[in-house]
């Protein structure tokens, strides 16, 4: 339960509103509750004493109270909407702010889609649940209590029947609700499975049809749908009891009250008006109880959302700035000393094993190796996107963990393998690298990245709008804009993580030539599949299965390294494996 309340800490400036809202609610409830009492009085005093004046004055009082109730109700509604909309705003902000402090490892843990769900669907769930809590959770118990008090005030003996009914009913409802929620949870699990199977069939329809497996899939689906049917039916059959149980209790109460009431009226200890009021309260009390149990169910349903959101808000970034950070990167020298690295602490096998490496400032270094040989993991440690598990990585002679993170990342510019452009103009995107870059500087960077040629051909050139995810430029164009964006940082170290895979070989060569001519003093690390992308580098690292297999000049490697030779020969020379997939 305390976990369920944790998001309330984010109410902040809406705390007052959230507290005031139930107060208005209480006002409305009290107004509503007074009306049956006054009604009883009209019957007893007004009609009984044949006093038309009394009827009129009490009637006007009742009208006034109803209008007051209306006012309280509206105020309650307004404050409630404000508090819940405010809560969801603050929850989103708290999550988003914290996500901005996340390290790559934190992001990996939640996954992109996980974060999106939390920021959107889960927050909406909580906003709705909170609205409900503010209105129902206060209203229902309040009206139950007020009605109970008034009932006791009118006649304690009859009111005690209500008390017993409430106790019995809450026990029955409680057990029903608990078992039903359990069934519903199972239903939702099966739902997920069913949806997964549909999803699979939608995306793999070609496989299904190619293997003529329609009937097979249909049978699988039929079974899954049947499973849901049974589970759901079980849950609904239990829910079906609630209405009748409720009605039975109300009816038994009415009969008891009528019987006892009749005796009391006849013997003079109860008036007809009071009996009418009591009958009205009977419904009020038991209906409120019903609402309380519904709220309970709704809260348990939003429990999952609350937990997911709390996870994000409470997540501590795994990377923090050191206390006295180094604010200047001296040069682009890189050194790995006895580095081991694993993405998860509990992982059995580290991704990088015992890496020792020294790269001079201004050197250009190629990195090749099979998929999964941990090329990307290696370079990600340099700009401290992840922290090493053991050993150390130094840049410019200083351990990366001693730098101010922003300083380090501005000097170590990475073009990620899975890169993104954002909606906005090309210029907007380029200026991510340097917010103050002039148009000339941007064009210059694009020329180096060979992006200028296609941007100039676009209708609005540098002001061309890029759609979300860069969907209106081709893969190769996207990669070149990303390179230009990274160049604008004017970094001391530039890392290209397979960043020209969709660029044709000739352009690729041009980009590399521009690097050598224009930024000779920048340390360049180039991960590539194509041997042509790295064979002009000063030195090449061969990665194999998380370890450095070899590190040397291209000529040295050609002589002594088998893996290099194998790749080299498969891509060049007489047995060349030409690439027939034209890039554009």
């Amino acid at each position, binding site marked *: 339960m305390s976990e369920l309340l944790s998001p309330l800490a984010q109410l902040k400036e809406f705390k007052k509103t959230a507290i005031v809202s139930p107060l208005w609610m209480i006002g409305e409830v009290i107004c509503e509750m007074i009306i049956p009492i006054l009604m009883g009085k009209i019957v007893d005093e007004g009609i009984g004493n044949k006093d038309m004046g009394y009827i009129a004055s009490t009637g006007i009082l009742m009208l006034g109270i109803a209008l007051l109730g209306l006012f309280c109700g509206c105020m309650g509604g307004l404050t409630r909407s404000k508090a819940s909309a405010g809560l969801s705003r603050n929850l989103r902000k708290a999550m988003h702010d914290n996500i901005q402090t996340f390290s790559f490892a934190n992001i990996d843990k939640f996954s992109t889609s996980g974060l999106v769900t939390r920021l959107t669907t889960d927050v909406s769930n909580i906003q709705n649940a909170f609205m409900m809590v503010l209105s129902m959770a206060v209203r229902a118990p309040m009206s139950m209590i007020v009605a109970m008090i008034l009932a006791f005030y009118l006649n304690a003996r009859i009111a005690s029947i209500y008390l017993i009914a409430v106790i019995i009913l809450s026990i029955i409802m409680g057990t029903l609700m608990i078992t039903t929620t359990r069934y519903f949870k199972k239903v939702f699990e099966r739902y997920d499975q069913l949806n997964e199977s549909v999803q699979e069939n939608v995306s793999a*329809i070609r496989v299904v049809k190619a*293997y003529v497996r329609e009937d097979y899939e249909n049978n699988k689906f039929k079974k899954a749908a049947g499973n849901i049917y049974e589970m759901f039916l079980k849950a609904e059959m239990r829910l079906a009891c609630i209405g009748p149980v409720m009605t039975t209790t109300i009816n038994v109460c009415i009969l008891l009250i009528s*019987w006892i009431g009749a005796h009391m009226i006849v013997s003079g200890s109860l008036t007809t008006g009071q009996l009418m009021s009591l009958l009205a309260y009977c419904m009020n009390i038991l*209906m409120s109880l019903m609402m309380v149990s*519904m709220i309970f169910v709704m809260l348990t349903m939003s429990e999952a959302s609350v937990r997911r959101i709390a996870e994000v808000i409470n997540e501590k970034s795994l990377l923090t700035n050191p206390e006295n950070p180094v604010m200047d990167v001296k040069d682009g020298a890189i050194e790995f000393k006895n580095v081991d690295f694993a993405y998860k602490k509990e992982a059995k096998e580290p991704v990088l094993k015992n890496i020792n490496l020294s790269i001079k400032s201004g050197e250009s270094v190629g990195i090749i190796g099979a998929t999964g040989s941990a090329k990307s993991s290696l370079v990600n440690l340099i700009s401290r996107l992840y922290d090493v598990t053991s050993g150390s990585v130094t840049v410019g002679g200083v351990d990366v963990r001693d730098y101010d993170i922003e300083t380090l990342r501005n000097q170590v510019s990475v073009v990620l393998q899975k890169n993104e452009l954002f909606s906005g103009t090309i210029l907007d995107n380029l200026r991510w690298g340097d917010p103050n870059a002039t148009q000339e500087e941007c064009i210059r960077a694009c020329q180096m990245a060979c992006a200028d040629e296609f941007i100039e051909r676009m209708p609005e050139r540098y002001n061309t709008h890029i759609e*979300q995810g860069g969907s209106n430029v081709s893969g190769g164009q996207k990669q070149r804009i990303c390179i230009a964006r990274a160049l604008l940082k004017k970094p001391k170290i530039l890392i290209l993580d397979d960043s020209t895979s969709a660029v044709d070989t000739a352009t690729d060569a041009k980009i590399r030539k521009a690097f050598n001519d224009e930024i000779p003093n920048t340390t360049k690390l180039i991960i590539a599949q194509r041997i042509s992308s790295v064979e002009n580098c000063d030195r090449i690292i061969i990665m194999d299965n998380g370890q450095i297999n070899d590190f040397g000049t291209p000529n040295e490697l050609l002589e002594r390294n088998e893996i290099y030779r194998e790749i080299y020969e*498969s891509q060049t020379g007489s047995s060349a494996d030409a690439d027939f997939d034209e890039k554009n």
Partner: protein
Amino acid sequence: MAEKVKEVKAFGGRGARGAPRPKVKNPGVLFMRVMRYIFKNYGVSMIVVFACIIITVFANIQGTLFTKTLIDKYIEPMIGQDNPDFGPLAGAMARVALFYLTGIVASYVQARTMAKITQGTLKNLRIELFEHMESLPIKYFDTNAHGDIMSVYTNDIDTLRQMISQSIPQLLNSAITIISVLGSMIVLNVPLTIVTIIMVFVMLFASGAATKASGKNFVAQQKNLGKLNGYIEEMMTGEKVVKVFCHEAKTIEDFDKYNNELFEASFKANAFSSILGPINAQLGNVSYVICAIVGGALALTTASSTGAGVAFFLALTHLFGSLSIGGLASFLTFNKNFSMPINQVSMQFNSIIMALAGAERIFRLLDEKSETDDGYVTLVNSKMENGKIVEASEHTGHWAWKHYHQADNTTTYQPLEGDVTFNDVDFGYDDDKIVLHNIVLHANPGQKIALVGSTGAGKTTITNLINRFYDIQDGKIRYDNININKISKKDLRKSLGIVLQDTHLFTGTVAENIRYGKLDATDEEVKAAAKLANADGFIRRLPEGYDTMLTGDGANLSQGQRQLLAIARAAIADPPVLILDEATSSIDTRTEKIVQDGMDKLMMGRTTFVIAHRLSTIRNSDCILVMEQGRIIEQGNHKELLEKKGKYYQLYTGNKTDITA
């Protein structure tokens, strides 16, 4: 009283009171179609439910009227009696208890039956949707976003569930209640009934105005929500880039702007909808109070018709009949019971319209035309008997086309060999946009045909025509010299093995995924197929070997491993013709070599169409087709094409010069 219970049940379902109604073209027609669908399987049950609702409402009214009887007939006369006789009262109460009991039983039966109807209908609908979806042509999946198809199964079915299980019975209940309560009220007292009706109109008017105002704001809220969600999706996808460029502060600034805009809109939208409740509740109270005053006055004149009553009221009494105290008590309960269902009807109306929008999408999917199949040539097991091919009932390892000729009422058998010809084939996804022109090719059994060309040249499209994922506009495709339109699609596809560009695996074990190619394959066969595809090695290194569970399209495997499994899946099916649409651009050269070896082994002895971009795959092909913009521009083997010095030569040498640049 039962309707009160229902109202509480309903609030769990939909939160958006006052949300704008979606537009549905023919709500009436759609509604009837939904009802027909329900009645198809649950007609009797629906009638039971209908009867139960009437019984419940009737029992409730009897219960409410009991208050009048109790006070007027039993309590009032007994006041002041020395020895009151409670016997008649006990009898009356027993009768009422019986009514109550009937009502409770009816409502229980109703709830249970309704649950069965709802879940049963949904189950049938889901299965029907799925089976129909499986029968749809590939084109449907090309032209509809997968997210949209999914949402039919999730959102649309769910709103329909609410409509069937809650809205329809509640609407019925409300309608019957309104009619019967109105009738009872008129019987009890006409002026009070008029007062009540006037107040109901005031209520409807007020809530209508609030709904309208909130509807406008809900649209604004949806718009802002969309904007913020779009921003969140974009930024979360690019979050790593944000970090690399230290762009956090700017991101927070933009996010706050969208977030605040949403807050404003959301507050306004909810504010209007949340005052709907109090307006209805308190106006209900006002109506109650007015009835109490008027009724009190009427009761007073009734009680004191001989006393110094006001002449005006006396006149009223004469006009409209009298009102007893008990009658007043019952009327006041009716007053409450009357406004409630009216409110509900308007609420249910909204949710029914919302559900119908979902139903429209469901039926649209069900109305999509299935893939047609007029093929009558089938694939059968065969054996040789006296030098002639005959059909075999057991699995022989030999297959033959069974071809029935209507003209002379004979059946011929022809061995399955894998000869494929394209005769001047034109194809377009739409009739007016032809993407493949005059395709002519001939693959002899066992030959390897390579398709080469840039992305979008139409390579994959050609392979999709052989297995009739799409039907051609003009020309002829023949398989073993039979027009493929004559071959039953099922059997045609069975005879073709395909490894697709995008590998798709299913939730299940590795072995199950391989077995997908041949459902009755033994464990040995599965292993043999895996070995052939070079997949056995990595499978055995998996935590549970062949029994390792794969989830999320094989997310726990690498791209190369998934492709090897897809090859093994094709291998186990052992088809005479293979289509390999290889996509190895994201696989590094070394892994690709392993995949390639697997493919090479698979290709041996089969007619193979291979889409490739690596020379090693292409050069030993029997025939290479160079494609450009939907046309075959060159055709021949490696040597011939190089000598031609055309596009192929260009592609080949162009890359080579690049490498040494």
